[in-house]
């Protein structure tokens, strides 16, 4: 089964620096299956004390599952976890906390209706001392440059501020191991740089070990000491960051030469993309938003005077840092959001907002940001999911025709190359890529004049990403006006004819693909006029 201990030891000693022979944390031969999907296949990972270790891989490579295992959120089928050379069992998050493992989650672990200081001490032991907690929040904040008001309610904070609270919450426990899961997806470029300098300070000053999960090459190259690369649930390469480059990492991550623009997009290397623009088309304006304004139920502004237009056959990319109104824009065009002011016109005529199904009827197809939340019904079958919005096509005035339902499903499954055992399979059992294909198939089957694609490749593997990218291109070639909303700049640069930047619920700048200047784009996304 496993190798003799001596061999094992000799091997790890060979790669480790002499000063740190005992890894701070070591995962040995971890395997985890979800149904038939192998999320982690015999994965081993070793991290030295005081280093920033990158865990690089595409979406769906198994990085998050591996870290969930380390934090006790997922129990592995087999394998072993060692900390400082000792075997440990991490069966729940409580144990992980006790072992000094802290994680900054992709989706924050904060309680919105509690104050910052309350969140900061949540999950600790001992007496709750408000004054002390406040002081600590301020101290930790000062030490690492993470200023935030300890008495504010988390609900009232911006996403960037929330992440600071999350970091303070972790750091104040002086964890031995700090894990960050895609921490920059909600940050501006400047904020990201600040974050990395904080991480560097944490490792040098406190000898904390950091694992940084990312799928962005630039980030890994910039911030880490060593990097482990995963693909398809397995570790495919290990590198010292200093001795590698973007091309090498990308090759390992994708498993082949990232020659095409789709692969470049998937691995997040911008270098390959800056050249080569496409000319914008001069078709009719199919979608026009004029000065749209909306507020959240708690009074926060969501959209503040946003205007844009998309022409037939054109792809307009909306770039921006997450949490700047992208979700609201998607919701608006899904009839999920009511406006305080402004108009939405599709094909020249105004569409009422917030009225269920109105956008769909007007010819707007949407591949929503969170397909589980609004794109499909996981507990209904694939065939049923394919007709969610067009039920009338397969039914009479009262009854649904099972025959027409299946026929339509069979046709779309064939046309969109969806891998599914039968149309009656529950949506829940499909892979992310196939779920996304179902959503896209349904939306395109309705022959829309406008297609909104929000984070269309998030969480997809490279094959599915390529597929989605190609389909979106095809849609534009067919004369559909495409609005692409993405926080992945690479994706936008790959696809869009024109790029608009969204910041705090409004479009703050626009340029054609050919005129894109990364520096300027970055400044705009950070809210600085350029």
């Amino acid at each position: 089964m496993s190798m003799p201990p001596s061999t094992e030891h000799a091997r790890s000693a060979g790669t480790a620096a002499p000063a740190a022979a005992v890894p701070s944390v070591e995962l040995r031969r971890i395997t985890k299956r979800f149904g038939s999907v192998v999320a982690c296949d015999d994965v081993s990972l070793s991290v030295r004390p005081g280093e920033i270790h990158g865990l690089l891989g595409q979406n769906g490579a198994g990085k998050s599952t591996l870290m969930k295992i380390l934090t006790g959120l997922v129990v592995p089928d087999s394998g072993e976890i060692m900390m400082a050379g000792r075997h440990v069992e991490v069966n729940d998050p409580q144990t992980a906390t006790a072992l000094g493992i802290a994680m900054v989650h992709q989706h924050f672990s904060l309680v919105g209706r509690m104050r910052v200081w309350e969140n900061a001490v949540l999950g600790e032991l001992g007496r709750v001392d408000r004054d002390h907690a406040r002081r600590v929040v301020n101290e930790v904040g000062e030490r690492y440059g993470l200023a935030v008001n300890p008495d504010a309610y988390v609900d009232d904070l911006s996403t960037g501020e929330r992440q600071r609270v999350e970091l303070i919450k972790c750091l104040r426990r002086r964890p031995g191991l700090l894990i960050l899961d895609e921490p920059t997806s909600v940050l501006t470029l400047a904020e990201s740089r600040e974050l990395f300098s904080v991480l560097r300070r944490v490792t040098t000053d406190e000898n904390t070990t950091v694992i940084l999960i990312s799928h962005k090459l630039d980030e890994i190259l910039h911030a880490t000491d060593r990097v482990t690369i995963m693909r398809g649930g397995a570790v495919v390469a290990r590198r010292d960051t200093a001795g590698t480059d973007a091309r090498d990492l990308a090759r390992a991550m994708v498993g082949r030469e990232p020659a095409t623009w789709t692969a470049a997009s998937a691995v997040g290397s911008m270098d390959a993309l800056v050249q080569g623009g496409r000319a914008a088309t001069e078709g009719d304006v199919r979608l026009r938003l004029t000065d749209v304004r909306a507020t959240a139920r708690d009074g926060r502004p969501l959209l503040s005077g946003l205007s844009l237009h998309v022409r037939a056959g054109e792809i307009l990319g909306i770039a921006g840092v997450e949490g700047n109104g992208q979700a609201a824009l998607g919701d608006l065009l899904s009839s999920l959001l009511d406006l305080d002011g402004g108009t939405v016109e599709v094909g020249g005529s105004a569409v009422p907002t917030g009225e269920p199904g109105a956008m769909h009827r007007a010819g707007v197809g949407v591949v929503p940001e969170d397909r589980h939340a609004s794109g499909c019904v996981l507990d209904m079958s694939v065939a049923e999911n394919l007709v969610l919005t067009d039920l009338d096509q397969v039914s009479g005035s009262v009854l649904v025709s099972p025959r027409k339902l299946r026929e339509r499903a069979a046709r779309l499954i064939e046309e969109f190359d969806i891998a599914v055992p039968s149309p009656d399979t529950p949506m829940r059992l499909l892979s992310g890529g196939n779920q996304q294909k179902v959503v896209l198939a349904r939306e395109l089957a309705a022959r829309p004049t406008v297609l909104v694609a929000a984070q269309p490749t998030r969480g997809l593997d490279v094959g599915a990403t390529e597929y989605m990218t190609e389909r979106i291109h095809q849609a534009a070639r067919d004369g559909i006006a495409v609005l692409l909303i993405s926080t992945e700049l690479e994706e936008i640069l790959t696809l869009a004819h024109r790029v608009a930047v969204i910041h705090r619920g409004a479009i703050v700048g626009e340029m054609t693909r050919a005129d894109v200047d990364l520096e300027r784009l970055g400044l705009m996304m950070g809210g600085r006029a350029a």
Partner: protein
Amino acid sequence: MDSVELILASAVRLAVPLAFAALGEWIAERAGTLNISVEGMMLGGAFTAVAGAGLTGSASAGLLFGVAAGLLVAFVHACFSHRLSVNTYVVGLTLNVLVLGLTSFLLLKTESRQVDKLTIPLLSDIPVIGPALFDQRWPAYLLAALVPAAWWLVRRSRWGLEARAAGENPQSADVTGIDVNKRRRQALMLCGALAGLGGAYLAVAEVGTFNQNMTAGRGYMVIAAVIFGGWTLRGTLAGVLVFGAADAMRLALPALGYTLNPQFLVASPYILALIAMTFFATTRRGPAALGRPFVRGIT
């Protein structure tokens, strides 16, 4: 003036058993359980208190039996809702049916036994509020300690912080390292103890004996009080007092020569709670995850 004093005293007297249970319900709801079985906890508490008083010959000991019965109901509820994740309303309703059936089935004839009154000298002579606050059965004064204790527990203690997190955002609480379902079970057990005490108080302090279905919906009134109070302790206790006053008026007004609709007064707590929910729905909300089972990995 005399009748005001009388009604006030009676209102407080009727509010005391509700107040015990409401403290518990408040704690349970803050931790995320909309506990419908509080009715069963109270009824079970009332029954066992009388049985226990008969067994030991001491009405005070009966109170402890009541607490135990409340705990037992809470234990069953907690196991079903926060271990097995069975729908909490189903479990609550079923337990109410069960306890009502059990106590009716076992209905016992016992002699009346009541705990003593404790009249606090001087203070009870204060006009208007004196008799209301300082001339009650002795266990009522436990509230003077339990109310601040409950407040401190929920608002200030480590346990309360974690329980509130479990009620507001169980997913976040979980990844932070809090055992959400354990906190919820503990909150429910506290609710059981307090509701059992409330029921016991009703039986061995206020009435002195057990009648079939003697709580008669007081548990639901307690739920209404927590809602009426907008999930704050102060508001909950205010609700309990208002409901006690409505009850007192129902009893007192005919004797005083007024005719106010008894049915309306009985229904008033529920109507008030509905009105409170309607008008404060946007400003005073319950815990975000109230009534939702927590299962790791499902959002």
